[in-house]
């Protein structure tokens, strides 16, 4: 059976209320399309995990999808505050959310440990900080070999990881370039993986450049061909970050009514990503296209 499906179907099939959901992507390749679909399907009580909640979790929190957020830096990158997140933490609007926070290193070490199927990861941070006082998951052990006091954080094993990539074949062998962030760890750590890509290509295209494949097909559950899934974040070589929107969101997110209006207009009233992109319009989309700048091919050799 083909794994290729729609985002609507993939979210319906794999994400249950109450699940621990990891949306991968550090600034790059953030799957807003999946976030919007979860909002549309009114998923509830999710434990949302990623180092930087970014606008995608800000919107999901505002829409009432989140019970808890696990993170390491909750701001609007390069702009300022993450206001819906703050409203939930400071005033319980629209609902109280639990938070569990780490440093970046601790957060990516958790998902790395999950991918390695290890129970925890040691790392040399956290010792001189108040963070362990407010997060009991940051612990310290004595190294059995050197006697050093070292910080440990538990593995993170999401129920579902959602990853966006530049391209894959129909089976989900995914190639990513540019900032690779936490994409690979997120996929390997999760029970289920939803992969979306800017374009599905022939298997042969993937096989001609196997070093670029970060995620193999057999750990992927659903493949969605979803151009512009990462907007307003970006995809290296495909489109730039829509910084105007990150600035706009700073204004929208100041007022719950404006957030409501945004969600109504751009999420609930939109059927899918295709409609969202059409709504963005050619002018906005064309402005985000970079000039082409190809890498040079390498010779893998053909051996007889």
């Amino acid at each position: 059976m083909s794994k290729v499906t729609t985002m609507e179907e993939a979210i319906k099939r794999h994400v249950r209320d109450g699940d621990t959901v990891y949306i991968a992507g550090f600034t790059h390749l953030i799957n807003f399309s999946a976030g919007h679909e979860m909002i549309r399907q009114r998923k509830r009580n999710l434990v949302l995990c990623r180092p930087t909640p970014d606008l995608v979790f800000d919107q999901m929190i505002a829409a009432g999808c989140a019970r808890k957020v696990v993170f390491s830096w909750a701001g609007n990158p390069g702009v300022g505050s993450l206001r819906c997140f703050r409203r939930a933490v400071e005033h319980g609007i629209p609902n109280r959310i639990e938070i569990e926070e780490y440093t970046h290193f601790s957060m990516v070490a958790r998902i790395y440990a999950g991918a390695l199927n290890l129970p925890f990861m040691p790392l040399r941070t956290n010792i001189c900080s108040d963070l362990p006082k407010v997060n009991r998951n940051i612990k310290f052990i004595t190294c059995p070999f050197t006697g050093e006091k070292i910080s440990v954080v538990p593995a993170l094993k999401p129920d579902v990881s959602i990853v966006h990539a530049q391209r894959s074949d129909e089976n989900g062998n995914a190639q990513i370039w540019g900032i690779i962030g936490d994409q690979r760890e997120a996929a390997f750590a999760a029970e289920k993986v939803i992969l979306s890509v800017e374009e599905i290509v022939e298997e042969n295209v993937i096989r001609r450049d196997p070093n670029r494949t970060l995620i193999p097909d057999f750990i992927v559950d659903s493949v969605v061909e979803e151009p512009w899934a990462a907007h307003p974040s970006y995809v290296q070589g495909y489109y730039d970050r829509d910084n105007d929107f990150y600035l706009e969101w700073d204004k929208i997110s100041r007022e719950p009514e404006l957030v409501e209006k945004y969600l109504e207009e751009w999420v609930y009233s939109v059927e899918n990503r295709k409609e969202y992109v059409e709504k963005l319009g050619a002018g906005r989309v064309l402005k985000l296209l970079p000039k082409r700048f190809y890498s040079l091919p390498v010779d893998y050799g053909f051996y007889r």
Partner: protein
Amino acid sequence: MKYSRNELMVVAAARELKNGETVLVGVGLPNLACNLAKRIHAPNLTMIYESGVIGAEPSRLPLSIGDPCIVTNSKSVCSMFEVFSYYLQSHRVDVGFLGGAQIDKYGNINTTVIGSYAAPKIRLPGSGGACDIAHLAKRIIIITPHQKRRLVDKIDFLTSPGVLEREKLEVKGKGGIKVITSLGVLSFNEKHGELVLESIYPGVTVEEIKENTGWNLKISELLKVTPEPTTLELSTLRSLDPSKIYI
């Protein structure tokens, strides 16, 4: 050439960087300082971003630490786990740049909450990589506006350790902390056991600095006046931020 105090702040930060060093860059003012140093006196500065980009040569001013322009033409891209472990944890980062909502006289930084953690008055973004950088980079440079509400006697939450806390680490980043503000430069002084005013910008008075500091700031016996930015420093800096986003 006329210049602003913020411009001198970036120039002063740039002068702290040495040719051949590796520096973990933040977006905004640190990014300007690093790019300025690279173009003036440190052409072999290796810029590392916590997003996993090594040896960046950004063609435009990056708007975030994950901007696509830092990838194109860089030397290498690795995962986030790798940048924090292969580079930072392995002491391959000479200088880390930090900022903060609250900074105390030891260079301890709060970027987590104003008020109590359980019921915060203001929920700030949190550590990000800052706590990790403060534990593991060899030297720390903090860039901050010089304001009483930022340079405080007591921080509400210890997100990232300053110099005394760093001393307690069994495996530590060696080297000190400097705080480059919009009025002058503070550095750690062994004798006083805290940050002291090391250098003051032209036209700024010690009184003005003391008024804008939340603790009784000690003044170095060797207090200097920071040299004004050169024409080259200023014109290069302005060309890096033509739309005046940060300066």
